[in-house]
């Protein structure tokens, strides 16, 4: 093997660093930047690395890179709608370009990037396993690395970059999950509050009107629709009649 790779034995250290950042700094861009830096430092031939989260429509949602050269090459890909990262993401497989000056799959992007002095690159998909196990892993983005000379990378480089991309994708999806969970717990708090108001009001109506639970609910629903206020506001008004029900008109 002619290529000077750092060994996979150093990967745990790199991941510890990435994990440390994720656990303390839940910002996707920073996390991706750290992963890109780790990739950049892993390969001797690298002049820059970057990671891009790509949404279902093929648009980059978040991107981070080690330097502006990578950013420029990235922007070109998404502007032109072609390039190895999009191919790696869409095909969910590693894509290697040995010489951008002779690359014919993405002629516009390759020619433009070669002018910046980027002559070879690898892009690997960031894959998240399907939790149900029923489907193929989902590609959430791509991790890429560039070199300023041709043939800087080989199959082994692809494997090592894929090793970085796998756990990186998991970290990133966990981060997305954590953000979803934080959002969910806020909605859940609101929902629980609203539930208890409605329960309380229902109990008061049952006592006051001598009706069943279902009867009390029907009274409240009828009022909600007639007055065009949310059921929770009807409940609030039953509990504290001084409150102006108009204040709670739903105009979301």
């Amino acid at each position, binding site marked *: 093997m002619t290529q000077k790779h750092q060994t996979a034995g150093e990967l745990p250290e790199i991941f510890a660093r990435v994990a440390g950042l994720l656990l303390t700094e839940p910002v996707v861009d920073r996390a991706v930047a750290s992963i890109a830096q780790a990739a950049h430092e892993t390969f001797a031939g690298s002049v820059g690395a970057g990671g891009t989260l790509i949404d279902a429509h093929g648009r980059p949602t978040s991107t981070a890179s080690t330097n502006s050269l990578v950013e420029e090459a990235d922007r070109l890909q998404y502007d032109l709608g072609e390039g190895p990262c999009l191919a790696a993401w869409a095909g969910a497989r590693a894509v290697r370009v040995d010489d951008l000056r002779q690359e014919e799959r993405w002629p516009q992007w390759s020619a433009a990037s070669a002018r910046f002095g980027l002559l070879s690159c690898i892009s690997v998909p960031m894959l998240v396993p399907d939790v149900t196990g029923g489907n193929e892993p989902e590609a959430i983005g791509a991790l890429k690395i560039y070199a300023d000379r041709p043939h800087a990378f080989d199959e082994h480089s692809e494997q090592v970059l894929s090793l970085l991309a796998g756990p990186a994708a998991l970290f990133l999806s966990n981060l997305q999950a954590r953000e979803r969970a934080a959002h969910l717990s806020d909605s859940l708090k609101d929902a*629980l509050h609203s539930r208890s108001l409605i329960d309380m009001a229902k109990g008061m109506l049952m006592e006051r009107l001598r009706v069943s639970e279902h009867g009390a*609910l029907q009274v409240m629903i009828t009022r909600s629709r007639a007055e*065009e206020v949310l059921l929770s506001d009807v409940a609030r008004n039953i509990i504290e009649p001084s409150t102006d029900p108009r204040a709670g008109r739903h105009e979301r």
Partner: protein
Amino acid sequence: MSVDKEGEAQRERTAKAFRHAELEIDDLWMHYFSIGGDAGALEIEAYLHGSYMLRPIQRDLLDHAIYELGNSHGD
């Protein structure tokens, strides 16, 4: 009208309103839960697809949840 027939008729009206409002099940479930609903997301989905029957109070709550969400989307 028997209780079952009544339930089925209501289910049909609610399912129609659900399709019309174009809501996500998860969003609907959260709102239904917030106004006192007790059935799970799977149960309400099955109910809306006609393969499960909810108790009367739960049927009314689900119907009203769709009504409120439909209003807030349409405005």
